[in-house]
């Protein structure tokens, strides 16, 4: 089978400009063609303090490709420092500048005495996808910007989760993870979104531990932080959606942080009581909507395929058909990820395919027995197959073109209810 990108569900490594963009007052500087940021900025919510049309870019042309673009880059960085008011400047390479062999590291090094920090990440599009690009940007900040802390702050926890902006729910999810941590009496430290930014980046080395809530993205970053600053990390592969997984999350974090078990259990009891107040009130909808069947399929990145499968099985009592992971998760992580899908309640196991070819996925779905209307949770690419299979369909992961997500979240107890709202808002549009 040729290496065909049919229905792209990931972007290239330069997509990590969104990671930089999500750090308030961090500015990506692109040493790339004129159209890269334009194409990579497809998701909504891009007009923040900076925006792709504000990102400095060398807009490489033929002359640069022939004679090299290092001087052009030097000019753009020097002038960006004068024109754009940022706290951190992150120079990102594109395909052209990498292939023609510009020594960007050297150019960036010449700004080491600049008033503001300037770092460099190699993010050429052909080197990997945006999930890896995200890790490379964080790695660049760790290696080139962070300095060891003179103290560790008890209870301070760096939280790392999904890829900002690429994940439409990144903001809400991250802030809900903060809320959960706060309930345990810990102090969360995140670098993305409102009122975070460089002051929080500066605190990374002093954290008591790093919490990674992600199947694989970010693992190399927390390992690097351990190596560089001796900060231990807790890796929880499942983004907690709904009661079962959120309670488990609180227990695991509580246990790792050495928080009193009774306190943790009290928090869980109160949250679950409230959650089940709503489930009790709406159980009739979940049970007695005639058009809702039992089987579902998630076509998404490892994060959502895993998290939604766990929620729909362990909380809602649905049954997984084969699940699809479309983020090109590196092979070294695939066995472990498959294992997580075997840890479902009632000895249920979900089969998982690592496949990014939308055509093949949808051909399989068309042949799958769903014992009723399927529930398809994926991206905009899956609307067509949903129509063909008369499925209930919800888009949750990139590309999501036909819904607007501002700050809502699927994380936590409330996040589970939100996902149920979204699913049933689709289901209730049909009677039969």
């Amino acid at each position, binding site marked *: *089978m040729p290496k065909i990108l049919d229905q792209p569900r990931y972007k290239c490594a330069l997509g990590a400009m969104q990671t930089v963009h999500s750090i308030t007052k961090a500015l990506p500087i692109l040493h790339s063609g004129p159209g890269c940021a*334009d194409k990579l900025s497809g998701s909504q919510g891009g007009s923040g303090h900076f925006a792709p049309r504000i990102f400095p870019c060398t807009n490489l042309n033929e002359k640069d490709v022939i004679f090299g673009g290092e001087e052009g880059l030097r000019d753009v960085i020097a002038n960006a420092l004068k024109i754009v008011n940022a706290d951190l400047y992150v120079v990102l390479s594109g395909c052209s500048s990498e292939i023609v062999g510009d020594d960007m590291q050297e150019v960036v090094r010449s700004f080491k005495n600049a008033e503001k920090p300037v770092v460099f990440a190699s993010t050429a599009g*052909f080197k990997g996808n945006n999930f890896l690009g995200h890790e490379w940007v964080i790695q660049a900040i760790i290696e080139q910007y962070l300095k060891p802390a003179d103290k560790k702050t008890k209870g301070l926890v760096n939280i790392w989760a999904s890829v900002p902006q690429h994940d439409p729910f990144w903001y809400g999810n991250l802030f809900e993870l903060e809320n959960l941590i706060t309930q345990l009496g810990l102090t969360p430290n995140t670098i993305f979104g409102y009122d975070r930014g460089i002051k929080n980046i500066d605190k990374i080395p002093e954290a008591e531990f790093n919490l990674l809530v992600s199947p694989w993205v970010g693992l190399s970053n927390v390992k690097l932080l351990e190596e560089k600053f001796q900060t231990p990390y807790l890796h929880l592969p499942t983004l907690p959606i709904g009661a079962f997984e959120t309670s488990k999350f609180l227990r695991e974090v509580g246990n790792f942080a050495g928080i009193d078990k009774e306190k943790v259990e009290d928090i869980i009891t109160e949250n679950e009581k409230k959650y089940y107040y709503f489930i009790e009130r709406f159980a009739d909808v979940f049970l007695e909507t005639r058009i809702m069947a039992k089987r579902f399929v998630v076509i998404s990145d490892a994060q959502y395929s895993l998290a939604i499968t766990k929620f729909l099985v362990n909380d809602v009592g649905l049954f997984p058909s084969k699940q699809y992971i479309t983020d090109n998760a590196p092979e070294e992580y695939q066995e472990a990820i498959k294992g997580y899908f075997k840890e479902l309640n009632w000895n249920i196991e979900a089969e998982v395919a690592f496949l990014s070819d939308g055509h093949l996925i949808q051909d399989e779905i068309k042949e799958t027995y769903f014992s009723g209307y399927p529930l398809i949770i994926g991206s905009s690419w899956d609307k067509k197959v949903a129509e063909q299979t008369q499925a209930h369909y919800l888009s949750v992961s990139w590309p999501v073109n036909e819904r607007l997500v501002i700050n809502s979240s699927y994380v936590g107890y409330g996040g589970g209810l939100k996902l149920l709202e979204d699913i049933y808002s689709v289901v209730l549009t049909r009677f039969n």
Partner: protein
Amino acid sequence: MTINLNVTSAGTRENRLGSITGYAGDLHDLVNQSRCGTLKERERCFSQSSSCDAGCALSQLAYIRDVAIINHAPSGCTAMASATVVAHTQLAAKRGLTYDTIFLGTDMDENDTIFGATIGLREIILETYNRYKPNAIFVGTSCVSGIIGEDVDSIINELASEIPIPLAAVHCEGFKSRVWASGFDAADHAVLTSLVKPPQRKTKFINFKNFNESARGEITELFANFGVEPFFLYSNSTVEELSHIAEALATVSICGTLGTYLGNALEEKYGVPYIKTINPLGIAGFEIWLREIGRVIHQETEVEAYIERERAKYLPKIEEIKKELKGLRAVLGMGASYAFQISRVLQELEIEVVWVASWHYDTKYDNNEIPPHVEYLEKESPYNFKVSVSDQQNFEILNILNTYQPDIYLARHPGTTVWAIKQGIAAFFLADEYKTFGYRGTLDFAQTILDTIRNRSFEKNLAARITLPYTDWWYQQNHAAFLKEDSK
């Protein structure tokens, strides 16, 4: 003639049309320099992310609803696929049609950059054909495929005997042109060289080059007065329909930038007249354009009768609203045709044009003439005005807005109006290419401007609560401070 349909590439606008993306001056200087051939590109020593010709070319071809587009590029270049397919599916649904076009990529990786990827490309073209049986396949080139020297033309030639549908390479390597509108030409070139057949008969159709055919109903009705029908392209068109465009009575375009290549090529090669007047935006544009169509299709009398009728209906209303617009000051940031055409419409509404930022500028069109809308303004504009050429360089736009403090900023491409409102300046995003079409459009446009400046809540609320991305230092500089004097 600048167009050569015997080669596989349309070439860049820089080479064909003397197009530029950096300039600071005024209308009269721009026209004079265009005439004398002295207009030179001024490079920047600071620039912000813009757009590329590949995105432009492939999104144009994706308007056709029964083809496959294969982007021979790393994954990020194909990140536009979903938004494109979704938008076009919505456009087709509006007309009760299905959109079957496939937009995929070759996901070029590091190995491909070392060993080449033409073998993989060949397999992907075949696989795409086998999966979807599209009615044509377009293969777009990219920066990477261009720099590593992928011979896409040869692959296309080889496969021509294996796949029984039109195949074409679309040469749109992003680094080759600073003018993304070169992508319009690359798309047209691919259509002209692979789909368009020599005419067999004359039809009642007029080719209407546009973007999203939002005024389809209105124009169909308009043309019916003269016994002709519009054929809109490329939106919702099919390969079969496009094969007949050389049989049309004429070609018209809503935008000079968009129409020059296809219109002039059809005229040159097949004798299909291309209406080269200013475009049908505002009153003068509409009338001059319609009269020229009337002349070409021999419907002069009917056209005059129509104009008289519609004038009586609309002009009093337009005169009325003009009283409220008179004296307002506007800054524009738009493509090379719309920037000047909308300036003309604003002047018709007695709004003062303070500054025009043209995203690029074509010194001439493919008929070797200066773009008609700048010549028109040179003659008709009651005053000279400032012009800059700036490929969506927001730092220049914001500097200009800060200096001139207009009543309204108008732009036609996403990503700039939001910055005007952050500076507290009312802005309107003129996305619909028919927003100012004819009398009806002129009136709607006037009303929209009035509505925009009369409720300033959104921009004032936001502007009061945010900080701007640029330094105070920058706002004290001249907008052209980073344009280099000399160019090579």
